[in-house]
């Protein structure tokens, strides 16, 4: 992936040299051209097109922004309802993620999403223990949210 980025920057520099004008706009045009070239060469060179990962990261960021706003509306409803009828609990959620930084990212995202708070990891990193503010009507929904987050993270890293 790092090699592709370097290659793309080299193409942009070559483009600026060919144009014989060295401004930011020329560099940008060269970079976009480099993206196209890399896209068409991806089968020939036998690598995975790196911009797909960048795109997946952008999608993850948008998903995160949406969930953050939903989380706050959720807290808003619970705190301002006249009667507190919450049923908190701790749920073990299995995860497929392997490396430490993926799990850290997932735990942070869980903490900032509606009604859930990551509390502990099992020793073999296969389960994340999550404190949920409303267990009975949410367990399925929580699973869904985590599936979507987990899938988005996997898309970025694989």
């Amino acid at each position, binding site marked *: 992936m790092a090699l592709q980025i370097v290659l793309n920057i080299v193409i942009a520099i070559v483009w600026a040299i060919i144009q014989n004008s060295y401004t930011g706009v020329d560099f940008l045009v060269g970079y976009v051209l480099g993206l196209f070239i890399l896209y068409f060469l991806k089968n020939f060179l036998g690598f995975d097109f790196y911009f797909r990962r960048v795109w997946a990261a952008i999608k993850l960021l948008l998903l995160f922004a949406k969930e953050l706003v939903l989380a706050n509306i959720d*807290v808003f409803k619970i705190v301002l309802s006249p009667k507190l009828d919450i049923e908190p609990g701790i749920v073990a959620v299995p995860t497929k993620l392997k490396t430490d930084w993926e799990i850290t990212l997932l735990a942070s995202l869980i903490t900032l999403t509606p009604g859930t708070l990551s509390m502990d990891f099992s020793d073999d990193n296969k389960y994340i223990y999550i404190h949920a503010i409303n267990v009975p009507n949410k367990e399925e929904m929580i699973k869904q949210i985590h599936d979507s987050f987990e899938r988005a993270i996997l898309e970025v890293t694989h």
Partner: protein
Amino acid sequence: MNASVMSEVIASILILIGTALSLLSAFGLIRLPDLYTRSHAATKSATLGVLCVLLGTFFYFWLAEGFLSIRLLLGIFFVFLTAPVAGHLICRAAYRSKVELTKETVQDDLKEVLEKGEKGRA
């Protein structure tokens, strides 16, 4: 509507939303029954509240004075990086020093795991 009026409108809306969210998270700290549910309110609402206030300040200085403050953006980034970790650590430390869960709690998957671990160690 000229640029300075617009910048004031955007900034004031964002800062008002931010302060309202911070107030809400303070209400949450008072009303919710135990430490774990309180940290729900503290981590989520306070984070977005700080984000909105910083973003409002950023837009005001950018649109009204043409000053692009990278420091404010970095501040947003660092708050987002640290707030969930702080919430996680406080909850984890509280659970391991056996802070009681509230009466309404319906499920506790972590309890048996920790008890098993302690027996294994002893």
